[in-house]
């Protein structure tokens, strides 16, 4: 079977009986077997469960019960989304044996559409990181260069799609965790508007920033998946009614008259010249297709990361209180009393980066510092949101890079947290403002590493960024990493 098929292409072949669901699932499971030693994109692979389900789904397709575009297509789920009965670790020791008793709404919706879950993907521990190196289960490698990181925190999902271990995957994005790994691995990912996709069953990091979204080979797949997983959910009171959720109708190759704003502050100091050039070339390509480009000052860009780290850490310190060794997960072996049990369990169960953020979060929320740090950050957030509102009065879409560089070497940023945080400069403000963003490949640097293009839209206007991204995508074919091509051949 051709592993380079997109999810929608594979769905079509399954529908036309050119490929059976079992064949497709087997091909991807074998692909994982061949590549996981190098890539380590997965924490859990459920061969048996997936094959069993494949037979069941095939029946439902044959009967005509399942007719959607994703019926029978395998998918991988980031390991911070609960799947009933399937190990869900958040890449942490503290959840090393946790098997949820329910399934996240977004995953449930995929299952209802006939998706086959083949496994759970590696990530930074509790989604805290931009490299997937903080995982308790070892780092994931970038299929474009195995000595480099895949980005993070959804690095396992991005690498799995890029290495063709799975046609598409779900990730989550709190400060860039879908878009940046998509950029580093040369795939496409959407961070939807806050509230677009239910967070029920997503193990919370920064609840006011977290969103679930797709990672896939192209814009069509992402739009198709988003259409399935979005919608209001009674179990997440921050999810909202569907507004303009017919995303696949925006898969149109036409940007004539579309107003695209280019924030000058996204192209300043710290941006790799090769990334800059590729992104500007992409902008020119859209201009040649009829879009109207204009440079502008977004402002406040340098304040987004500090505000983000205060807010995300504060929320994390509260969200992660629940991991105390009582109801699920790891419990320390020796302890004096209840309180000592909590402390030892958490100290042994959490990794360094998670502890760092819990401590920072506890500090900024503590009395005496709450106003100076936490409230200040929420005020900054309001100003950043306003800056985007002003920009979107003039532009349909904002265009810029996803990250200042291409994929870094493994270990390069691990010992310098602030350096790692700075890599999120173009992505975090999107979460603070709650707007949607898409990341897709727009070129390659001289080392042959993919460069990501980021397009941002107004609240609930995913359709404009999907249309712009789709139009751009038509100008360049999808490029597979040599690794996937070679390993795919060897295996076939």
């Amino acid at each position, binding site marked *: 079977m051709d592993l380079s098929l997109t999810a929608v292409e594979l769905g079509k072949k399954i529908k036309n009986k050119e490929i059976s669901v079992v064949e497709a699932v087997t091909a991807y499971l074998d692909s994982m077997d061949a590549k996981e030693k190098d890539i380590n994109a997965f924490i859990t692979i459920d061969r048996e469960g997936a094959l069993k389900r494949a037979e069941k789904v095939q029946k439902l397709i044959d009967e005509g019960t399942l007719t959607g575009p994703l019926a029978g297509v395998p998918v991988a789920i980031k390991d911070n989304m609960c799947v009933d009965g399937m190990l869900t670790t958040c890449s942490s020791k503290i959840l090393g044996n946790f098997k949820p008793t329910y399934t996240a709404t977004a995953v449930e919706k995929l299952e209802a559409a006939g998706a086959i879950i083949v496994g759970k993907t590696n990530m930074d521990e509790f989604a805290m990181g931009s490299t997937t190196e903080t995982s308790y289960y070892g780092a994931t490698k970038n299929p474009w260069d195995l000595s480099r990181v895949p980005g993070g925190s959804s690095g396992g999902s991005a690498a799995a799609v890029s290495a063709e271990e799975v046609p598409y995957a779900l990730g989550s994005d709190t400060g860039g965790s879908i878009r940046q790994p998509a950029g580093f691995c040369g795939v496409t990912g959407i961070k939807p508007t806050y509230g677009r996709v239910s967070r029920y069953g997503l193990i919370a990091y920064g609840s006011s920033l977290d969103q679930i979204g797709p990672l896939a080979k192209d814009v069509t797949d992402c739009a198709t998946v988003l259409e399935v997983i979005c919608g209001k959910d009674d179990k997440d009171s921050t999810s909202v009614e569907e507004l303009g959720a017919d995303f696949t109708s925006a898969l149109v190759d036409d940007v004539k008259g579309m107003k695209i704003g280019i924030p000058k502050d996204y192209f300043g100091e710290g941006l790799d010249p090769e990334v800059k050039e590729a992104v500007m070339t992409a902008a020119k390509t859209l201009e040649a297709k009829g879009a109207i480009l204009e440079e502008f000052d977004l402002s406040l860009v340098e304040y987004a990361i500090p505000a983000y780290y205060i807010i995300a850490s504060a929320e994390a*310190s509260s969200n992660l209180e629940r991991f105390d060794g009582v109801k699920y997960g790891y419990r320390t072996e020796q302890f004096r009393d209840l309180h000592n049990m*909590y*402390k030892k369990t958490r100290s042994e169960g959490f990794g360094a980066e998670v502890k*760092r953020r819990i401590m920072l979060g506890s500090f900024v929320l503590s009395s005496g510092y709450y106003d100076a740090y936490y409230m200040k950050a929420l005020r900054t957030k309001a100003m950043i949101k306003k800056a985007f509102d002003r920009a979107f009065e003039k532009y349909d879409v904002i265009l810029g890079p996803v990250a200042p560089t291409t994929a870094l070497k493994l270990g390069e940023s691990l010992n310098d947290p602030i350096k790692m945080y700075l890599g999120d400069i173009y992505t975090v403000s999107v979460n603070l403002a709650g707007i949607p963003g898409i990341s897709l490949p727009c070129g390659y640097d001289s080392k042959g590493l993919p460069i990501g293009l980021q397009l941002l839209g107004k609240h609930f206007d995913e359709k404009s960024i999907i249309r712009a991204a789709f139009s751009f995508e038509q100008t360049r074919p999808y490029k597979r990493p040599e690794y996937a091509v070679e390993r795919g051949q060897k295996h076939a």
Partner: protein
Amino acid sequence: MQITDETIDYVGILAKLELSDEEKEQAKKDMSSMLEYVGKLNELDTEGVEPMSHTFSVHNVFREDVVTNGDDRENMLKNAPEQKDGAYKVPKTFN
């Protein structure tokens, strides 16, 4: 901002984390540099700006209080580090 031993101990209590002496030293360093970095926000005049937690107006969401999920006690307890008589077992909290 300099982080003292007292501050780190206090944060350790809030965060329910027990740090070794070595970890404490590292945490002091990390937190000082993080706070110095996020202190950049002080350059920004936020006078009169309302703190924003949600980016679009949210309202209370009401629904009927009806139980829709079944009794899942047995399954949920399977995840418990220790259980007894259908309940979570924890160390003795008082004498």
